[in-house]
C-alpha cells in the first residue's frame, strides 16, 4: 500500500490478523450476550402479553424487536435458528460442539452416541488444520482473560506487583485426564464445570435470562484471580482441560508460524507479547501455539510468517539481523543481554 519514498512499510495482511482476532473474540462474546436476550424476547412474544410486561421488560422487548424485525417476521419461531454457545450450539439446524464436550460425554456416558459425535466434525477439522486456534480466536473466556492480562500489564506499569510465576504446562493434561476420569466415575460430565468457555456461555445465560449466577461464576472468578496473582494467562497455559485437548489435536496442525532467521533481529518482542509464554524467537512454537498472531503483529522486521507444515522447523540459531550475529558470536546459546531483555518484556 505504501507509495515509493513514503517511508511506510508495505501492507501485510498477516500483521493485521491480530486485530481481526480481537474483532472475532468481541463478536463471539457479543453473540453470547445477545442470544439470552433474544430468548427472553421470544418468550415475551410467545406469551402474547405485551401490555402485561413491566417497563423494563417492555424496553427489552422494544430493543430486541428493533434489532430483529428487519430480519425475521415470526420471532418466536424464526429466532430458534441460532441457539447455544461455544460449548455446543445450533445454527440453522446445524449443530456444532466443542471437542471436549464430545470426549467428556463419551467418558460420562460410557459409550458413543454417534448423532452427537458428528457435531464435532467442523471444529475438529479446523483444529487439525489450525491447531489451538479456538483458544485465541473464539473462546469467550479468552476475551476476558486477555483483557485481564492487559489490565495486569497496566498494574505492572503502575508499579503494582502481579503474578509472573511459571508452572509446568503439562499440568493441564493432568487436569484433562482427571476431569475425564471424574466424569466417567460420576456418570456426569463434570469436566464441563471447570472449563471456562462452557462456564461463560452458561453463566451469561443464567445472568441475563434468570437474573442470577451459578456455581460456575465463582469458579471463573477464581481463575481470574489466579491469572492476575499467580501466573499470566495461568489458567489457559497450565490448567485448562479444553486447552489441553486442543493442544493435543493441534500437535500436527498444518498451518503454523515460522521464524525467518534471515530477517529476525533477536529483539524478543515476540516472546514478550506471547500470551502463552512460548518462545517464537528461538523457533519454540510447539503444540500450544494458538496462531493468535500477536507475535506477528509486533515483529518489527516481519520475520514471522505462516507456513504449511506439520512440524516446527528445528531451532535455527540467532537471527541474522541480530546483534550477536553482527558481533560474530555464532553460538546458539542465548546471551545474557537477550535473556535480560526477554525477562523485562
Amino acid at each position, binding site marked *: 500500500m505504501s507509495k515509493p519514498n513514503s517511508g511506510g512499510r508495505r501492507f501485510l495482511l498477516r500483521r493485521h490478523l491480530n486485530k481481526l482476532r480481537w474483532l472475532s473474540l468481541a463478536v463471539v462474546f457479543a453473540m453470547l450476550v445477545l*442470544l*439470552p436476550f433474544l*430468548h427472553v424476547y*421470544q*418468550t415475551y412474544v*410467545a406469551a402474547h402479553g405485551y401490555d402485561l410486561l413491566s417497563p423494563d421488560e417492555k424496553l427489552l422487548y422494544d430493543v430486541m424487536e428493533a434489532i430483529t424485525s428487519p430480519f425475521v417476521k415470526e420471532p*418466536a419461531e424464526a429466532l*430458534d435458528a441460532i*441457539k*447455544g*454457545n461455544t*460449548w*455446543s*450450539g*445450533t445454527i440453522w439446524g446445524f*449443530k456444532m*460442539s466443542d471437542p471436549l*464436550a464430545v470426549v*467428556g*460425554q463419551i467418558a*460420562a*456416558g*460410557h*459409550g458413543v*452416541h454417534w*448423532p*452427537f459425535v458428528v*457435531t464435532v466434525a467442523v471444529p475438529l477439522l479446523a483444529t487439525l488444520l489450525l491447531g489451538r486456534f479456538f483458544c485465541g480466536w473464539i473462546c469467550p473466556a479468552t476475551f476476558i482473560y486477555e483483557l485481564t492480562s492487559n489490565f495486569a500489564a497496566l498494574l505492572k506499569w503502575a508499579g503494582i506487583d502481579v503474578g509472573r510465576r511459571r508452572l*509446568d504446562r*503439562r499440568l493441564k493434561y*493432568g487436569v484433562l*485426564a*482427571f476431569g475425564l*476420569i*471424574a466424569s466417567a*466415575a*460420576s*456418570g*456426569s*460430565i*463434570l469436566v*464441563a*464445570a471447570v472449563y471456562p468457555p*462452557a462456564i461463560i*456461555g*452458561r453463566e451469561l*445465560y*443464567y445472568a441475563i*435470562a*434468570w437474573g442470577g449466577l*451459578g*456455581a*460456575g461464576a465463582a469458579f471463573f472468578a477464581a481463575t481470574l484471580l489466579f491469572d492476575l496473582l499467580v501466573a499470566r494467562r495461568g489458567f489457559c497455559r497450565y490448567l485448562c482441560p479444553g486447552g489441553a485437548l486442543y493442544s493435543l489435536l493441534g500437535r500436527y496442525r498444518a498451518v503454523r508460524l515460522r521464524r525467518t532467521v534471515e530477517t529476525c533481529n533477536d529483539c524478543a518482542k515476540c516472546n514478550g507479547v506471547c500470551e502463552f509464554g512460548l518462545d517464537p524467537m528461538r523457533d519454540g512454537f510447539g503444540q500450544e501455539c494458538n496462531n493468535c498472531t500477536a507475535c506477528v503483529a509486533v515483529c518489527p522486521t516481519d520475520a514471522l510468517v505462516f507456513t504449511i507444515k506439520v512440524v516446527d522447523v528445528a531451532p535455527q540459531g540467532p537471527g541474522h539481523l541480530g546483534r550477536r550475529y553482527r558481533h560474530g558470536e555464532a553460538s546458539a546459546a542465548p546471551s545474557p543481554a537477550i535473556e535480560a531483555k526477554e525477562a523485562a518484556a
Partner: protein
Amino acid sequence: MERRTFVATLAAMAAGLAGMPVRSSTGETEIRYLRPPGALDEEDFLGRCIHCGQCGETCPNRCIRYFGLENGAASLDTPYIVPRDKACILCMKCGEVCPTGAIKPLQRELETILDGVKMGHAWVDESICLSYQGKTCGVCYRACPLQDVAITVGRLEQPHVTDKCVGCGLCERSCIQMPQAIRIAPSHA
C-alpha cells in the same frame, strides 16, 4: 513431575474416584423436580447431558431451570422443571435442540408424546381435592393438554388420572387448592 509419577498419581486419583458413590449424589434436593419432556432415565440422562443450556434457551415457556449444587455435583447445571412454579407445555422444542439426545427429539403429536414422554405421573389427593369435598372444580381437567386421554372427570368434576398421563404438570400448576390437591410424582425418583 516425572511422567511415571504423573501417571501413578492419576491412577491413584482414579482409584479414589471409582470408590466414590457419586452416582447416588442425585436425589439430595428437597425440591420435587421433573426432567424435561422426552428426557432419558435419570442415569442415562446424566451420562448424556453436556450442560449446554440450549433446552432452557429454547423453552418458550421458561419452565426449564438449572440446578446449582443443591442436587449433588452430578446434577450441576442440568435442566429441571418444578411444575408448581411453571409447568411444561409439551412444545417439544427442547428435544429438538438437544445435541446429545439426553432429551429425545420427538414430534409434537399425540402418539409420539404418549410413547416418548415420561416425566412423571399425576396423582390426586382426594382428602383435599375440592371436587371430592363436594365443591365442583375441574380446573385440573381443563388445564390438561391431553384431556380425556390422560385425565377424565366423573361426578362433580372429580378427576381420575389414567395410565397415559405423561407428567407435564399443567394440572398441578393450575390447581387452585393450597397445598395443591393434584401433584406429579416424578418418574426419575
